[in-house]
């Protein structure tokens, strides 16, 4: 396990460039990384500027794909205070699918992640929130047993703690290598959403690029409020599959966030620079115990919007303009440490649950991770089902 700890120590490994496939991203990820070319307008962007700009091209507004850690840092007030759930859950190879363990290991090394979602608890504009953030760079963000289990538990814990949940989807769909068990995660997560929802709690689903197939066909579609990032690919069937089926070209706009919005499946498209503020406002409106002061009344709005999050994942600037300071959110604040502890504790309980479940032939628990042999790495598209 030394290997894994090694991986988790480094924070610099996260992929921050968009690529059409994992092969391409692996190539682009070369350590120099001083300049990045915008995939949309071709502008050469200085890495530091790009980072400060939340990985949005300042020339054309193109939203680069970002890994889960970067996303969490952009959304929560204090990334260091983010308490991660179920870190130690790892995938097995339940079908003995060829090359799968090698692929998992190679992907883990490359991304520093153990699977394609990070879940945990953090504060957004001071409001305690459970997050489940997917990472497209981990096998195309594909949903297998670990992703399904982590997402399900995130909803369960948010329900137990009475907290809102924000998910950020970035996934090509279900993970092929776990076959039918991946498909079953669609039911698990949908049922978890509904159980959570019946407690009257808020679920905000953010659909980032891409949100397709089995993830679009499950929890990501079911937010009380669905928010998409500009230009994100959102759809069920893969474009190539559609083209092969109907034997004609598909308009490139078909599965763009803007089209999906027009078709009525998304509540709003929010640029990354506004995302934290918008989520924060919605969280506040669903959690505040007293009257809420409109942002419109806040004197320092306008010009500060950009600065609010730009290059400042701590979001202190936002706290000024945000009404929660003058709201009975102190209540929530005093609850935080308790809730986080409780979450950690329940993590322990749930872990026991898995142990107990190991009696079942289909739920395998093993004491160790797979070997760390490096295997051939195939394209991102190789890890998810297009439909």
């Amino acid at each position, binding site marked *: 396990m030394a290997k894994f700890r090694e991986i988790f120590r480094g924070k610099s490994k996260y992929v921050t460039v968009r690529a059409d496939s994992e092969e391409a991203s692996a190539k682009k990820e070369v350590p120099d990384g001083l300049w990045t070319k915008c995939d949309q307008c071709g502008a050469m962007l200085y890495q530091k500027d790009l980072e400060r700009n939340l990985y949005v091209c300042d020339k054309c507004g193109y939203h680069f794909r970002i890994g889960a850690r970067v996303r969490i840092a952009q959304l929560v007030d204090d990334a260091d205070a983010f308490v991660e759930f179920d870190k130690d859950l*790892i995938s097995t190879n339940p079908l003995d699918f060829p090359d799968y363990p090698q692929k998992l290991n190679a992907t883990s090394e490359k991304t520093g992640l153990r699977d394609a979602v990070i879940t945990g608890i953090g504060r957004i504009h001071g409001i305690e929130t459970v997050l489940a953030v997917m990472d497209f760079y981990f096998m195309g963000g594909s949903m297998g047993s670990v992703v399904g289990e982590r997402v399900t538990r995130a909803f369960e814990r948010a329900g137990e703690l009475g907290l809102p949940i924000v998910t950020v989807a970035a996934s090509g769909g279900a993970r*092929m290598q776990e076959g039918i068990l991946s498909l079953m995660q669609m039911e698990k997560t949908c*049922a978890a959403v509904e159980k959570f929802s019946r407690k009257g709690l808020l679920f905000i689903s953010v659909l980032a690029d891409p949100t397709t197939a089995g993830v679009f066909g499950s929890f990501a579609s079911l937010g009380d409020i669905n928010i998409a990032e500009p230009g994100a690919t959102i759809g*069920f069937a893969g474009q190539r599959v559609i083209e092969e089926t109907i034997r004609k070209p598909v308009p490139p706009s078909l599965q763009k966030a803007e089209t999906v919005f027009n078709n009525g499946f998304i509540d709003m498209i929010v640029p990354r620079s506004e995302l934290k503020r918008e989520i924060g406002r919605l969280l506040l409106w669903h959690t505040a115990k007293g009257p809420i002061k409109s942002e419109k009344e806040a004197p320092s709005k306008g010009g500060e919007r950009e600065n609010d999050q730009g290059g400042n994942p701590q979001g202190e600037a936002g706290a000024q303009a945000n009404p929660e300071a003058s709201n009975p959110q102190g209540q929530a604040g005093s609850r935080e440490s308790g809730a986080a502890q409780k979450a950690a504790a329940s993590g322990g309980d749930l872990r026991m649950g898995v142990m107990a479940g190991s009696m079942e032939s289909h739920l395998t628990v093993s004491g160790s991770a797979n070997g760390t042999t490096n295997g051939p790495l195939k394209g991102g598209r190789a890890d998810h089902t297009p439909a």
Partner: protein
Amino acid sequence: MANGVFDWEVPLVELEKRIEELRRFTRDEGIDFAEEIATLERKAEKLRQEIYASITPWQRVQMVRHSRRPTTLDYIGMLFDDFVELHGDRTIRDDPAMVGGIALLDGRPVTVIGPQKGRDTKENIRRNFGLPHPEGYRKAIRLMEQAEKFGRPIITLIDVVGAYPGIEAEERGQGVVIAESIRRMSFLKVPIICVITGEGGSGGALAIGVGNRVLMLENAWYSVISPEMCAQILWRDVKRAPEAAQSLRLTAKDLLELGVIDEVIPEPMGGAHRDPQAVAASMKEAILRHLAQLDQESPDELVEKRIARYRRLGAVALASGE
């Protein structure tokens, strides 16, 4: 495959033909071939055993795509005393790729739903090769909620390669409707029995496949992706579909072992099309038996147990040393 005969069946079918000829001879010409027939029958039986003992997952996938394999409406005709088909999703149109309605199961009204493939080219075109649009799933949701209102059990018969991948299907929210269907089906307070009769293709199958019991015909397949698409994506070579079929563990036997299904319903050697009545009889017996068990559960129990059934599915491990 030629004339509905699979390549691997050819020697067997040849033998069966010769036996049939000898029988006709005996009948028409009065010549006694009893001994020869008996010999050939023994030979045929041995061959049959050999062929079907080593049948591969890919062969099964082909078997359930046989043009004479019973369709959803065929089974509905055989399983139930009577059937009233209901139409339309109440939003945009009626989707002929998804059928549903109220049926009498030994005199008891149940709601039955399933994708419908065509039995010939003309019908296949009308039914979009059994690939439902979002409105097909909306119709299914409507009928399931209607079943809940009237306390009727729900039987779904699943034979679908997948939800239709098309422009209009995307525009009308194929992904969203599948998620909705899964979510609502999970919480319905009536017994749900799903039978995978042929192809169980991914989200398009699961959308009507969330049951208290999931049964599966012996040769049916159920997976997150079709073997062809898996081979195409993973190895960029659709010709490796047989290999993908093997790796995906998509057969009824595999799924029983994985805990995804509850029972395998046997088929005659060679596939369901060889004796549809016998298959329907076994299926009906299994449905009645499981329904009798589910009748003992309260509406809340039905929901809890259904959700728990799926909640435990997945293979995760704990990394040590944390």
